[in-house]
Each structure stands twice: as C-alpha cells, then as structure tokens.
C-alpha cells in the first residue's frame, strides 16, 4: 500500500513538475515579449515566472525522492544522480537526471543573479531551451503510464502552451535593444549628406 502511495506520488509530482516547468518557460518567453492584458500588468510575467520556478522545486524534489525511496523501482540514489546508472529504462531516466542538473543550474544562477556576470547568467539561462524538452521526453519515455489518456492530455497541453509562447516570442521579434542600430542609421537626408562643416 505504501509502495502504491510512493508510486502515485512519483508520477503525480512528476506531472505537476512538468506542468510547472511549462508554465515557467511560457512565462519567461512572454516576459521578453512584454505581454500585458487587463488585470495582468507586465511585471506579473517576471514575478510569476520566478515564483512558479521556485515552487516547482518542491514538486521536482518530491518526484525524485519518492522515486528513489520506492523499493519497487529499485532505483538507487545513484540512478537519480548519474545518467545511465539506472537499471530501469536507463536512457529515459538519464534524460530526467540531466534535466535535473540543468534545472539546478538554472535555479542556482538565478538566485545568485546579482552576484554573477550578466553574460554568465544569460548563457546558463539559454540552457532552459534544452531542459524543458528533456523533462517532457523523460515523462513520455520513462513513465510507465505515459500513454494513459490523462498523461497524454498533460503532455499535449504542455506542448501547445510552450509552442504558443515560443511563436509569440518569435513573432514579436527582437526586443528593443536589437533594433537600436537600425533606428540610428535611419537618416532622412538622402540627397544631401548631413555634413555641416
């Protein structure tokens, strides 16, 4: 009975963590796209992105701990920390382990953001584009109930949300900073050079 609880906890927490990663990724994308709506000011994007990311730590921790502690799965702590060390579906679990490390890097660099260079923080944050697909793929391949309707629905929702946010982010185009040089160069004096000497 207890084993069942742990197993449900692992799958449930995993699914919730995935949903939260999805929300966080989407919120990060719309932060750059400067989304705002009635009742949703711009600062909500960044704020919610951070809060959801921090909250997802809890669910990720529950997912990993219950998976390791569950005697049925025979996953030792090694399997959770070393890619491919698992005897149960080594590659899918490895995806999860790598995603876990990337997640830790994201969280640590973001908490220490004011103390590290902006270039370093930004470089590590790009890693999130790898982390989310890995988490999703880990869920699909490592989960024993990956093809139940509810899990498929969760996966679909996650993919749609990130795809939508990503498309919006791409459509909105470059943030202001990348457009500055072209504005600077846009002189209206074509015939005459602006050469007052």
């Amino acid at each position, binding site marked *: 009975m207890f084993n069942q609880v742990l197993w449900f906890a692992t799958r449930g927490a995993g699914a919730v963590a995935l949903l939260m990663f999805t929300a966080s990724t989407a919120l990060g994308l719309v932060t750059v796209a*400067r*989304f*705002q709506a009635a*009742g949703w000011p*711009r*600062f909500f994007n*960044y704020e919610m992105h951070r809060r959801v990311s921090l909250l997802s730590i809890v669910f990720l921790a529950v997912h990993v701990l219950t998976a390791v502690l569950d005697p049925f799965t025979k996953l030792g702590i090694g399997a959770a920390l070393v890619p491919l060390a698992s005897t149960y579906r080594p590659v899918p679990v490895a995806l999860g382990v790598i995603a876990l490390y990337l997640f830790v890097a994201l969280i640590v660099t973001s908490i220490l953001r004011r103390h590290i260079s902006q270039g370093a923080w930004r470089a590590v944050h790009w890693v999130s584009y790898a982390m989310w697909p890995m988490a999703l793929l880990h869920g699909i391949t490592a989960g024993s109930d990956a093809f139940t309707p509810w899990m498929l629905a969760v996966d679909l929702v996650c993919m749609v949300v990130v795809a939508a946010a990503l498309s919006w982010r791409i459509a909105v185009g470059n943030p*202001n900073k990348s457009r500055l040089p072209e504005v600077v160069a846009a002189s209206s004096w074509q015939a005459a050079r602006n050469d007052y000497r």
Partner: protein
Amino acid sequence: MKTSPTSQRDRGTQPNARRPGPPDPAAGLSDLTLGIDRITCDGYGSCAELLPEMIELDDWGYPIIRPGPVPTALLGHARMAVDTCPVLALRLAAVARATMAAAVNVPAATVRAGGPARATNR
C-alpha cells in the same frame, strides 16, 4: 503616456490604485536614490508599474526617473521595482555614493567628444 512599440495597450488598465502626486516634504526622505544602467535597460516598463510616483515612461517606453532621494514611505515599492526589473537595470544606491561624482566635481556642463567627464544617471 504611450507604451513601448512592442505593445499598444493602454497603461490605464494596470492595477494601480496609488495616484502620483508631488512629494510631501514632511513625509521623510530616505538616504537612498534610484539609479539606472541605461545601456542594460530595454524598456520593459515594470518599474513604472511598480513605482509610478517616481518613474514614468517616455514615448518609447523607457523610464524617466524623478531625481532625488526616495521617500521612506515608498522604499518598499522601490525595492520591489528594483527586484522586478527583468534585466536588473534599476538600482537603489546610497545618496552619498551617488554624489561622489559631485565630490570629484565634474561640472554640470556636458561632455565633449574627447572630453574627460561622464554622466551621472538619474
């Protein structure tokens, strides 16, 4: 007040119950002042949403910051504005440090091409 070119939404829809107004001299000023890294700033505009008493956005969505020390009553909001800038462009700094430039006595007159002085941002 227009928002940045990437969004045409009216700022009037923002949940902003506090009305901007002139500072009350009796309210007490802190010893901190707002500073901004103008190069990092990318016109996100969260600062103006969170501290409208001291920050408003220009025609292109970039902040215009009211100079001078932050009133003590607004310090909490100021800290939140600093914390919520997605690129960490906004800062709170002690007034003494912000006017160290004055101690070096760079004249208020401008820098010329090839000149030695630099801006103190407000």
